[in-house]
């Protein structure tokens, strides 16, 4: 137990001091890594804990990006506030999506494909709506001022997303030890059994998807403020959905540390392959695909899942040897 906290402490020290010895490039990679760790952590709530696998979290990401941007550009609303409004709207959309799907007990592939379609609906809607400037996208005017969510250097963005990621991780940790968390896992593991124990499955799933959607929007707002440009093709793309779910799966679905560990593998891995295989375009993506497949083949429960398994087995082993000793001595 203590060892765990020491590790977390060390990690936090590393993350907080990272800008001191990092290059600008590494800081950018760190920011993107944390951003997807954040989004993946949000995804984890509905998909990891309650097992409802969403393939369309780009919907909420995009809503976060667009809401804060439109509010800023059209109505001069501060993005720090716009961020929360975006989250509320995304949560509302998630609520509707959840209501439609869970009400009719959609599960598995059907749920995944519905979320995918939902993200597509939003993308097509935005790109056909004059109010959102169609496919032209919206640029955020440069106005460097932390009060307006714009920082002189990358360090500001880094600490913003770092703190957001820590907050969401704490939230997920608290959920994982709460009634809600246990209910969600119970739903994932065995819905019938969960019901027999008084778990209100519909209500819990609704809470999970609403929370998950709303939180994902924060990452969207951050993305928009970081790049100062949003476009339906970039923020509602299915690529974004994949980038959101990949860290959690690689790291370990339904674990608190999974999405973070996963993102620290997946995102740098993409960079690494593209640097190592830069001579021939495409080879980098082949390498990336191969490595992702290998990771999933050999660690189907994700890196953190593997680790837990290993710890469990070691514990069990220790206990057994202890018991043997005891039986010998007695």
């Amino acid at each position, binding site marked *: 137990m203590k060892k765990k906290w020491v590790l977390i402490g060390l990690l936090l020290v590393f993350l907080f001091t990272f800008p001191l010895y990092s290059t600008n490039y590494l800081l950018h990679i760190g920011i993107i890594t944390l951003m997807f760790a954040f989004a993946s952590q949000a995804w984890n709530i509905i998909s990891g804990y309650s097992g409802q696998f969403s393939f369309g979290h780009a919907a909420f990401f995009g809503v976060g990006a667009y809401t804060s941007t439109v509010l800023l550009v059209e109505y001069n609303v501060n993005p720090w506030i716009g961020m929360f409004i975006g989250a509320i709207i995304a949560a509302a959309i998630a609520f509707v999506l959840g209501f439609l*799907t869970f009400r009719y007990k959609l599960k598995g*592939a059907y749920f995944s494909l519905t979320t995918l379609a939902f993200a*597509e609906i939003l993308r097509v809607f935005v790109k056909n709506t004059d109010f959102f400037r169609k496919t032209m996208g919206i640029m955020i005017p440069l106005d460097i001022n932390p009060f307006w969510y714009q920082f002189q250097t990358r360090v500001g963005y880094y600490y913003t997303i770092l703190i957001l990621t820590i907050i969401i991780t704490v939230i997920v940790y608290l959920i994982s030890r709460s009634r809600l968390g246990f209910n969600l896992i119970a739903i994932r593991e065995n819905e019938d059994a969960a019901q027999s124990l008084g778990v209100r499955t519909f209500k819990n799933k609704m809470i999970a998807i609403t929370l998950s959607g709303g939180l994902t929007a924060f990452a969207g707002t951050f993305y928009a403020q970081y790049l100062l440009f949003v476009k339906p093709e970039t923020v509602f793309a299915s690529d974004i959905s994949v980038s959101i779910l990949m860290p959690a799966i690689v790291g370990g679905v339904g674990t608190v540390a999974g999405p973070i560990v996963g993102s620290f593998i997946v995102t740098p891995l993409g960079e690494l392959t593209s640097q190592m295989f830069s001579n021939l375009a495409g080879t980098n993506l082949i390498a990336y695909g191969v490595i992702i497949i290998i990771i999933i083949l050999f660690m*189907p429960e994700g890196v953190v899942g593997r680790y837990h398994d290993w710890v469990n087995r070691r514990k069990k082993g220790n206990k057994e040897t202890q018991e043997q000793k005891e039986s010998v001595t007695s």
Partner: protein
Amino acid sequence: MSLWLFIQSLIDGLLMGGIYSIMAIGLTLIFGVMGIINFAQGALMMLGMYVTYWAFTLAGIDPYLSLPLSAIALFILGALIQKGVLERVMDAPDHNILLITFGIMMIIENTALVLFSPDFRSITVPWLSETIKMGDYVVSKPKLIAFFISMSVALLLYWFLQKSYLGKAIRGTANNKIGAALVGIKSKRINYITFGLGAAIAAIAGSLMTPIISISPSIGHTFILKTFVVVVLGGLGNVLGAFVGGLIIGVSEALAGAAFSGTLNELVIYVIFVLILIFRPKGIFGGGS
């Protein structure tokens, strides 16, 4: 909308629907039997296109004659993918399998990019280039052929699954793995065959598309999402459903395209999709083949 526009759109929609259908049939077969949502289906189709393209360009083989060639080639590749990779994760959670097929898609697409270059390529087949004209209405020859082949594949596959021994074994595996194993069906081999068949059908779709559009390594993206819609519409795992689903999507897309401005017709497809999922979650024709 004038009557002419309506009828012409209907024709175009039906023909395009035939193409969506054949894409969807392969996908639905794989899902129905193995429960895999195969993201690499579009990439497999792309490979089928290249087989036909090269056969035509290098050896002058007519695209419809190279159809068996691409089907066989992709059948083998599909079976190998199943044996080499997917077999190891058949019991893993759905999301793992999904990501694996996603990885396979990346590998196939970018290998094609490295081998064939990203250039758009197209073939011109003289006897196909004339359209059939009936008064004011026009019908594209390669699309018409694709439509009929697609329908034949759907019927053949349906017949195969219902009547042949192997087909029954495949259905048996789909319904009950353990039960099938008890009566001596080797589910591993059935899975090779199923994924191979799915890939072969994707290849047929690709070959049929080659005279119609330009091909490039990333062409699969154009179809994959729409194909998912079709598959769900027809009921995951339902072959005839996938065929009819394809027609429905083709027609609604064309009619919506005629009726609305912009690209809102895409919206129509997804809205139909979500409505179907909500009110008839097993597809219009119920699940299972």
